[in-house]
C-alpha cells in the first residue's frame, strides 16, 4: 500500500522528508535513511515482534531447558550442555518451538526487507548529503579486493548481499541498510540510533586499563578493524579528538557510506577496503588498534591472523583492544541450544567456534604482554576520570562487553 501524497512527485518526496524529519530523534544524523509513515510503523512492528519472541517466548525455553531438562538429566548422570545438539533435534517435536524458530527467522527477514524499502527511496537524497560533505575524511576502495570466504559463504545475519555487496562507484546502499537496521537489530540497546555504545565502551576500557598512558601519551593514530559503517569508529574519534583515525572493512558500499556518515557528523575518518588479516599500513604505524564485535564473525584461522596483524601494526608500547559479545559467560544448556540456532538460522557460521576460542590465549601467542580478558560495563559516554569498572564478573550482552586487551612489549 502506497502512502505517497498523491500531489507530490516521487523524486521530491525524500527532500520533503528531510525537512519534516529534521527533528526526528530516530534519525540521529543527516545520513540516516528517511522513513515514510507506514515504514516507520513497520520498523516499530519489527521491534515489537522481536520483543515478543525474545522476551515473552524465549524465557520459556530457558526455563524448560535450564530448570527442567538439565536438572533431570543431571540426576541420570548426563550433561544437557554437552548434549545440546540432541536436545535441539528433540525440540523439533514441540509445535511451539518449531513456530518460534520459523517466526524468529521471519522477524529477521522482515527487518531487512522493511529497512531496504526506506533506503531505496532515500538514496538520491543521501547521495546529495554525501557530496555536500565530500571534503571530510577519505575512503580508499580496492576494485581487486576479494572478501574472505567466511564472510561471503552465507549472508551473515541474513542481511541480503552480506557485508560485501556493492553496485560499483558511488554506491551507498549496503551501508545505509546496515545503519538503518542496526538500531532495530539491537532493539535500541547499542546506543539508540547512533549505535555508538560499543565505541564508547572501548574508549572507556582504554581509560580504565591504561590511565597513565592516556595522561602522558594518548594515542595519536588509531585503527578500527571491521568498522562496518563506523558506528564505533566515530565514538573513538570523538574520545580521541587529536588522533588520526582509520577504519577498515571488506565492503565498498559500507565504507563509502561510513565516510559520508562520519563526515555528516563533522568527524574525519580514513576508511579503506582491506582485510583485517593483512592490511597495507606500515609496521608500527598505530598507537592503538581495536575491533568491535568482529572476531566472532571471522574463523579459527583468521582470528589468530588478525592478532598477529595487530602486533605488526602497533608501535612498541601500543595497545590492542578487541570487544566481543559476551559469548562464553553463560555455559548453560539453553545458551548452547540458542547458540546453535544463532549459527545455523541467523547465519553466524563461526558463532559456536568463537564460543570455544580462547581469544586471550591467541593474543598472548601473537606476542602481546599484559593480556587481560574480562567484562567492561557499557557506557553511553566514555569518561577518562571515571572510576575504573573493568571486571572479571560476567553479565549479559549490551550491559557488559567481553574485552581482550594487551600491549605490544617494548623491544
Amino acid at each position: 500500500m502506497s502512502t505517497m501524497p498523491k500531489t507530490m512527485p516521487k523524486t521530491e518526496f525524500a527532500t520533503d522528508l528531510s525537512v519534516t524529519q529534521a527533528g526526528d530523534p530516530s534519525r540521529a544524523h543527516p545520513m540516516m535513511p528517511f522513513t515514510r509513515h507506514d515504514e516507520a510503523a513497520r520498523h516499530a512492528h519489527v521491534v515489537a515482534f522481536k520483543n515478543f519472541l525474545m522476551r515473552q517466548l524465549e524465557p520459556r525455553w530457558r526455563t524448560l531447558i535450564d530448570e527442567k531438562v538439565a536438572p533431570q538429566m543431571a540426576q541420570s548422570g548426563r550433561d544437557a550442555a554437552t548434549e545440546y545438539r540432541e536436545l535441539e533435534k528433540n525440540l523439533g517435536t514441540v509445535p511451539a518451538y518449531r513456530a518460534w524458530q520459523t517466526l524468529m527467522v521471519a522477524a529477521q527477514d522482515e527487518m531487512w526487507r522493511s529497512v531496504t524499502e526506506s533506503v531505496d527511496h532515500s538514496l538520491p537524497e543521501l547521495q546529495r548529503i554525501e557530496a555536500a560533505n565530500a571534503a571530510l575524511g577519505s575512503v580508499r576502495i580496492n576494485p581487486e579486493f576479494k572478501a574472505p570466504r567466511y564472510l561471503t559463504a552465507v549472508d551473515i545475519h541474513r542481511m541480503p548481499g552480506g557485508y560485501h555487496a556493492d553496485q560499483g562507484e558511488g554506491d551507498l546502499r549496503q551501508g545505509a541498510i546496515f545503519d538503518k537496521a542496526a538500531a532495530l537489530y539491537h532493539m535500541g540497546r547499542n546506543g539508540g540510533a547512533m549505535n555508538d555504545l560499543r565505541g564508547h565502551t572501548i574508549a572507556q576500557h582504554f581509560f580504565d586499563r591504561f590511565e597513565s598512558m592516556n595522561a602522558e601519551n594518548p594515542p595519536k593514530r588509531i585503527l578500527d578493524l571491521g568498522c562496518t559503517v563506523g558506528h564505533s569508529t566515530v565514538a573513538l574519534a570523538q574520545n580521541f579528538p587529536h588522533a588520526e583515525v582509520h577504519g577498515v572493512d571488506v565492503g565498498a558500499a559500507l565504507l563509502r557510506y561510513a565516510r559520508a556518515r562520519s563526515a555528516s557528523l563533522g568527524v574525519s575518518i580514513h576508511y579503506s577496503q582491506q582485510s583485517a588479516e593483512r592490511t597495507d599500513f606500515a609496521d608500527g604505524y598505530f598507537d592503538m588498534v581495536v575491533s568491535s564485535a568482529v572476531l566472532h564473525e571471522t574463523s579459527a584461522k583468521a582470528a589468530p591472523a588478525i592478532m598477529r596483524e595487530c602486533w605488526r601494526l602497533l608501535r612498541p608500547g601500543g595497545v590492542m583492544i578487541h570487544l566481543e559479545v559476551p559469548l562464553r559467560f553463560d555455559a548453560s544448556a539453553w545458551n548452547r541450544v540458542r547458540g546453535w540456532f544463532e549459527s545455523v538460522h541467523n547465519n553466524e557460521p563461526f558463532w559456536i567456534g568463537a564460543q570455544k576460542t580462547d581469544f586471550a590465549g591467541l593474543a598472548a601467542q601473537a606476542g602481546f604482554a599484559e593480556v587481560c580478558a574480562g567484562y567492561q560495563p557499557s557506557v553511553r559516554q566514555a569518561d577518562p576520570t571515571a572510576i575504573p569498572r573493568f571486571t572479571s564478573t560476567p553479565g549479559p550482552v549490551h550491559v557488559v562487553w567481553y574485552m581482550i586487551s594487551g600491549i605490544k612489549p617494548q623491544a
Partner: protein
Amino acid sequence: MTTDRNDSSPESEGLIFEPGATARIHGSQPDIAMLLRMVAALTEEVNVLRTRLDTHERLAEAGHAPTPLSVESHVPSPEVVAERIAEGEALIARVMHSVVEDADGLLQDEQRIRALWQDSQRGDS
C-alpha cells in the same frame, strides 16, 4: 579444535556449515512454515493500520485534518514510539497466543519434558 584437516574445509576454519547449505528447522513442514509467515505478515499489516489510525486521532486531537501530507509529516515523540511498540507487542501476543499456550502446556507436562531427553540417545528420526 580440529585444524589439521584439508585447508579449506569449514571444520578447519571452525565454521559449522558448508557454504550454501540450507538450514533446516527440525520437524518443520514447509506449508506450515509458509502459513506462519503469512500470519506474521498479516499481523504486521494490522499493526501498521492501527498506527495509522493512531496518527489520525493524534492529528485530529491537535485540530489538524488527517491528509496524506499531514500524516507523512507527523513525527511521533520517542514516548509515543515506545507506547506503540508496547501495544504492538500486546497485539502480537494476542494473535500468537496459541504458541505461548503450547509452550506453557509443555512446561507443566512432565511426560513431554522427559521425552525431550530420554529419547536423546536415538537422535534425529
